[in-house]
């Protein structure tokens, strides 16, 4: 058979390469529901497999992989089988039509024509959709609202259209949608799948942006679509004898390891991560394929013949970019998986551990506490938004209140100004408040189980931080306890999260608890710079260390550029505080590291396995904070342990 001459011989290196690429492709597919295949088609082409054989073999490995992935993710409740099947059936028609076009091009223009067609499809589709998804992922990430994904305006319009006799209910949309919308979306998905073996680059965004499915469910349901059309596509290509079963099964061997891991990864991440991985990989592969387009154009005689060394060089560059795409996607997924699993293990260990003794076993009498720089420990204000970022704050607030006999006032504040309210509508606000009340009920149950008196309040405010500060003043709180969002860098400065603003405006001390932090009194780190603020922090540390019988490390950081006089001053600061803490009967040591203050404080806390950093607050807010930055803010940003900001 003539076409059989296109089946290339495989050596050990090719097989290893395909196994690795298959694994990473599977990892990506399991994570974003699609997209593994778009890496695999060019990967096969890069070792000399003709475009059409690469596409056919890819589809043949794709449907069993999608089946395994769909079953896995259905176990996590992420799959809408009905939506997947409805889209899959119409996608089947698209696959048949797309495969017909592929074969026609191959017959007329040969391998070069087929390769050019596939590469151009990659460039155009990935260029448009990839850039949009990446932009949307960045926007969603910066909005920091991970609680619930907002349905796109287009999707809201699609869901509002009622065409009698064509309406169908889908559970992942929680709405009825006309099949007249799903048909063209499915067809386009199938056509793309038959062209570049990745229908999901239309399917997932279509389900998410056009129909309104959550990103996680869209990516999971796409696996059902991929199975249906992959099976159909395989039949079609196999009918023409184009499937290289060796290639398909070798890739499948690696990809089934990857898809299981990718599917597990989705249970640990926020929806914007799905889009981020998809967008990053799409854009990089687009660049990879765009680089070799001139080679195929030259082979077809559509442009001047390239210099003899140029085709090889372009293919090599394309290959490097492809590897970068693979590495980037896999790195993001691995990183998300690693962080998620580590966090869960820490939290599980905390939940299983006996109640730890951050707070003293013997409750300080109010009379004694009145004289303490810690202030009274009678009223705690817990600010929680119900997200996982607040989990540590809730846990530690209940634990501390139980130990100190303090009363807890829990607040969950729904953000939204008048303009936003108009846009969101009353129903949306009511739903948000209901969710907040449900969360606070849970906190109250948790507090009741620990024997803590707890009141709660769900409210709405234009500025969350103002409301927290106002609640602290109203309830005369001795301590505000809150979580920390996992954001770093420029976005943090620009957005100005509530935690930082609360610290700037709070009338009392603020305890910031990252979600996996544990307050068990292993060691406290006190940051000192010789100011009255750090002296207050040292007084607080002395009081807490005595109550908890916890050793303390005093840190004063110097920069290499500092003068000898400044360095001597740092020694004096540390010696003064160490003497003071020793007099108070606290086990203490001093440390004067060189480097950036925030980095050295966090590094010391890590080295000493400390569970609390105590710092003074200079109370910077607004423009001054943005321009000058704040050491305490950067420490909160970087550290894994809790931070007590003393006012």
């Amino acid at each position, binding site marked *: 058979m003539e076409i059989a001459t296109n*089946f290339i011989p495989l050596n050990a290196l090719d097989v290893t390469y395909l196994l690795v690429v298959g694994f990473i492709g599977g990892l990506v597919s399991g994570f974003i529901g699609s997209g593994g295949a778009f890496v695999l088609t060019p990967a096969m082409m890069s070792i000399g497999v003709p475009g059409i054989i690469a596409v056919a073999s890819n589809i043949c490995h794709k449907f*069993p992989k999608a089946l395994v992935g769909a079953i*896995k993710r259905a176990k996590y409740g992420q799959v809408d089988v009905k939506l997947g099947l409805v889209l899959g059936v119409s996608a089947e028609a698209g696959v048949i039509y797309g495969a017909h076009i592929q074969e026609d091009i191959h017959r007329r223009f040969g391998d070069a024509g087929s390769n050019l067609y596939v590469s151009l499809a990659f460039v155009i589709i990935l260029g448009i959709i990839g850039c949009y998804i990446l932009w949307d992922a960045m926007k969603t990430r910066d909005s920091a609202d991970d609680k619930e994904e907002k349905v796109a305006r287009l999707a809201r319009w699609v869901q509002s259209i009622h065409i009698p006799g064509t309406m169908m209910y889908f559970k992942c949309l929680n709405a009825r949608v006309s099949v007249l919308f799903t048909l063209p979306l499915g067809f386009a998905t199938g056509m793309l799948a038959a062209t570049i073996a990745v229908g999901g680059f239309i399917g997932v965004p279509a389900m998410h942006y056009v129909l309104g499915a959550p990103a996680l469910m869209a990516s999971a349901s796409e696996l059902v679509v991929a199975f249906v059309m992959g099976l159909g596509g395989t039949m079609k290509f196999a009918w023409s*004898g184009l499937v290289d079963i060796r290639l398909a*099964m070798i890739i*499948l061997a690696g990809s089934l390891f990857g898809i*299981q891991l990718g599917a597990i990864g989705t249970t640990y991440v926020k929806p914007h991560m799905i889009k981020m991985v998809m967008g990053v990989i799409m854009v990089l592969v687009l660049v990879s394929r765009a680089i070799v387009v001139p080679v195929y154009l030259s082979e077809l005689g559509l442009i001047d013949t390239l210099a003899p060394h140029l085709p090889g060089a372009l293919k090599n560059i394309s290959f490097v970019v492809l590897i970068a795409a693979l590495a980037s996607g896999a790195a993001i997924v691995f990183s998300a*998986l690693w962080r998620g699993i580590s966090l869960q293990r820490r939290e599980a260990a905390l939940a299983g551990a006996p109640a730890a003794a951050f707070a003293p076993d013997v409750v300080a009498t109010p009379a004694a506490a009145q004289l303490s720089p810690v202030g009274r420990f009678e009223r705690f204000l817990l600010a929680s938004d119900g997200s996982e970022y607040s989990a540590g704050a809730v846990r530690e607030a209940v634990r501390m209140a139980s130990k100190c006999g303090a009363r807890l006032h829990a607040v969950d504040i729904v953000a939204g100004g008048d303009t936003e309210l108009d846009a969101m509508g009353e129903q949306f606000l009511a739903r948000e408040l209901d969710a907040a009340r449900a969360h606070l009920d849970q906190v109250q149950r948790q507090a009741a189980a620990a024997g803590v008196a707890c009141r709660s309040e769900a409210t709405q405010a234009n500025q969350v931080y103002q409301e927290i500060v106002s609640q602290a003043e109203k309830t005369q709180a001795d301590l505000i306890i809150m979580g920390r969002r996992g954001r770093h860098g420029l976005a943090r400065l620009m957005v100005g999260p509530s935690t930082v603003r609360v610290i700037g405006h709070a009338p009392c001390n603020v305890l910031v608890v990252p979600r996996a932090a544990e307050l068990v009194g292993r060691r406290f780190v006190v940051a000192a710079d010789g100011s009255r603020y750090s002296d207050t922090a040292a007084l607080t540390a002395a009081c807490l260390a005595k109550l908890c019988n916890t050793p303390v490390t005093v840190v004063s950081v110097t920069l290499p550029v500092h003068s000898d006089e400044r360095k001597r001053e740092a020694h004096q600061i540390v010696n003064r505080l160490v003497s003071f803490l020793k007099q108070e009967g606290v086990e203490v040591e001093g440390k004067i590291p060189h480097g950036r203050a925030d980095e050295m404080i966090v590094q010391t806390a890590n080295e000493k396995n400390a569970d609390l950093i105590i710092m003074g607050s200079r109370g910077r807010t607004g423009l001054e904070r943005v321009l000058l930055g704040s050491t305490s803010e950067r420490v909160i940003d970087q550290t894994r342990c809790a931070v007590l900001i003393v006012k």
Partner: protein
Amino acid sequence: MTKTSLDLAGKQVTRAALFGLVSVALYFLLYLFEDSILEFTSQGGWYFIAPVAVAFLFSFIHGNFTAHFWEVLGIKAKK
């Protein structure tokens, strides 16, 4: 570790090993009869069933192996 969890871990290891062995055997056969299998599955026409059947068989065996493999290593979904 309780007795029940030890039993469960033991079962997972046994299943992973069993599916792993069958999976290796399948791939070894594919390697051994590479040319014949390739020729048979690429004949076209009604022989399209051959690659589809091979793919289903491999996905069942190898899919089960990979699922148990990660579980044995302790990599599980967030509950």
